[in-house]
């Protein structure tokens, strides 16, 4: 850690993964195959077995859910018979459909908000690493990243109620608004770190040249800065979207009747009756995502050869 970041304080370790691009290194993958030519030792076999077992472990409950989505019984947990009734029921259940719509809308909203705020802050942090406010902002972002969701949740609810009742800002009694705001907090920090990491490695002289040539700030931003940070912005937005879709704790505290997101619906049914419909919807969502991923994978296989994308970036991005 020593050489990596000293300015991020407690969140240094989290930021490290994202702050990757700061130091550009040539990919070392080319050197790897020669090392791998060695005869397979027992250790190698054991390690490979461990890796495969680990993957099975990760997939295990997902497979269970997929299998149980074909349960025709009334309760998810007690297997009754094989059939597709849960899929029919799920798609004809207006409540389930509504919760998915709420979730997607909230995810899109919080992705937009956190991407805008985080990208701007990321640029500012990358360009002015020694300004006085940098320490404070980094501390603030770090605090958000180490605050457990439950603490955020219990503090936001009274605040939203205060805002809508005492301050008469009725916009904060709208469930969708509350969800977007609540989900955006953590994502803001994530996007900021990703964008900062990207922009820290980029030379500022291009923008200065543009400024010297008389380009107005907005023009400079759109023509030069934005294209440079686009990959980081897209990854940040995507991550914000995913994080929001998965959020249960914050949502269950701040959501308002009529705008219940999908995870809160699942959590509530867990306490009453867990029906196979829940597994059916999850399976459908997973299936569609996988098909999309596979298509993109095929399309991009050729493209990625030339762009030199590395898998490490993928992981680094997800880690935030």
């Amino acid at each position, binding site marked *: 850690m*020593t*050489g*990596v970041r000293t300015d991020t304080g407690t969140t240094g370790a989290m930021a*490290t*993964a994202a*702050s*990757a*691009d700061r*130091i*550009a*290194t040539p990919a070392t993958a080319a050197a790897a195959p020669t090392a791998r030519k060695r005869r397979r030792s027992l250790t190698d076999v054991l390690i490979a077995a461990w890796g495969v077992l680990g993957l099975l472990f990760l997939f295990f409950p997902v497979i269970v859910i997929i299998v149980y989505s074909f349960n025709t019984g009334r*309760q998810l*947990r*007690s297997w009754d018979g094989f059939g597709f009734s849960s899929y029919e029921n*799920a*798609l*004809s*259940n*207006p409540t389930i*459909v*509504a919760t*998915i*719509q709420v979730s*997607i809308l909230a995810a899109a909203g919080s992705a937009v908000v956190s991407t805008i705020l985080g990208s701007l802050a990321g640029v500012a942090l990358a360009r002015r690493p020694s300004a006085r406010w940098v320490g404070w902002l980094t501390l603030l972002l770090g605090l958000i990243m180490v605050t457990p969701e439950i603490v955020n949740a219990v503090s936001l*609810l*009274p605040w*939203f*109620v205060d805002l809508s*009742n005492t301050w008469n800002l009725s916009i904060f009694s709208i*469930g969708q608004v509350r969800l977007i705001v609540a989900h955006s907090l953590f994502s803001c920090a994530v996007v900021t770190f990703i964008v900062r990491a*990207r922009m820290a490695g980029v030379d500022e002289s291009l923008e200065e040249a543009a400024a010297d040539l008389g380009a107005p700030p907005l023009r400079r931003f759109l023509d030069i800065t934005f294209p440079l940070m686009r*990959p980081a912005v897209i*990854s940040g937005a*995507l991550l914000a*979207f*995913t994080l929001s879709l998965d959020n249960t704790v914050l949502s269950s505290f701040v959501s*308002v*009747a*009529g*705008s219940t997101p999908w995870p809160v619906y699942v959590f509530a049914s867990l*306490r*009453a*009756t867990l029906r196979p419909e829940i597994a059916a919807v999850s399976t459908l*969502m997973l299936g*569609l995502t996988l098909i*999309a*991923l596979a298509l*993109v994978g095929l399309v991009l296989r050729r493209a*990625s050869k030339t*762009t*030199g*994308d*590395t*898998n*490490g*970036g*993928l*992981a*680094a*991005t997800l880690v935030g």
Partner: protein
Amino acid sequence: MPEKSDVRLLLPASMTGHVSRRLFLGGLLGAGATAALAACSTGSGSGGSGGSGELNIYTWGEYDDPDVLSAFTKEAGPKITIDSYGSNQEMIAKLVAAAGTSGYDICLPTHQYIPQMAASDLLEELDLDKIPNFSNVDPAYIDQSFDPGNKYSVPKAWGSTGYAYDTTAIPRELTSWADFWEVAQNEASGSLSLLEDPGELAYAYFFANGIDPLTTDEGHLEEYRKFIVEKIAPHVQTFESYPGASITGNARILAMAFNGDARAGILENEDPDRWRYVTPSEGGNLWQDNWVIVKGAPNVDAAHEFINYVLDPEVSLKELLYIGYHTGIKDIEQAAIDAGAELPELIFFTPEQTEKLVFAELNEAEQAYVDIYDELTASAGQ
């Protein structure tokens, strides 16, 4: 600098990462696919979520026949969304915290909480003129002490609390609360489910020990606290609001339960004879849940309309057959038996049983119940 052959400086290099387009595009497509799923499924659903035409009901789990709800939407229009809670405390906490912004139109508090909820400005007054079917309710269940003149509430259903056990694990016959607590510490240890309801647990102890369940005596409460935290906590496997599902799956061998939920769970079990429900001989808590309209309800008219709808004798019968609780409508018992209700003894009590049921009241012991419950959950299962 990075070129220097210094391992320390290779550390940051090891963290280098580029953004993978494949992931981003893949993810975006994934998101799009999900959106498409939602969009196409809207088509097959009943759809039509007009802002004013919605009715949000905050209720106990599995407390309405889904067919009744969809029939109402078909007849009257408002789309119904159900959220459920596991205890009155949870429901009240939500309403208090939201201070009128919860978005719920209707909720179903148990009778003893209604006076305080009304006093705390959580309830809207009912307009009984908009509920003509109120006349169908058996006079025994109206104008009760907790809500004189039915200013805020009309009855939804009433029932009692008992317990169910797996006869393959506990072959002997259990009949009382004393048996319950005794078995809980022996055969059922580690496979015991208690209700997620602070008051119910206290009542069950007081009944078993011949103490007035409505006691506020500090000595009694302390006795109860000691008993449940020290004697019972180690044997609890889980706290549930609706153990019916675990009864169906034989997940536990002893579960404290409401009669209707236990009945539903037993009926769903592949071998219903395996389970027995006990209406304890010492007596039990008699509770009555009531329809109320929440203060700040976005759709007061639809709420009245819905309450009126469910008080129709035929609709009420459907509800009763689904939930397994007496709905308080005149002559509903005979109608249910004529309709061939299964396990009627778990829905309707004998006069001797009814005599021993005690109508719960909210008193100063409530805070103690909650505190003791917190202590119990923290020390359970150790």
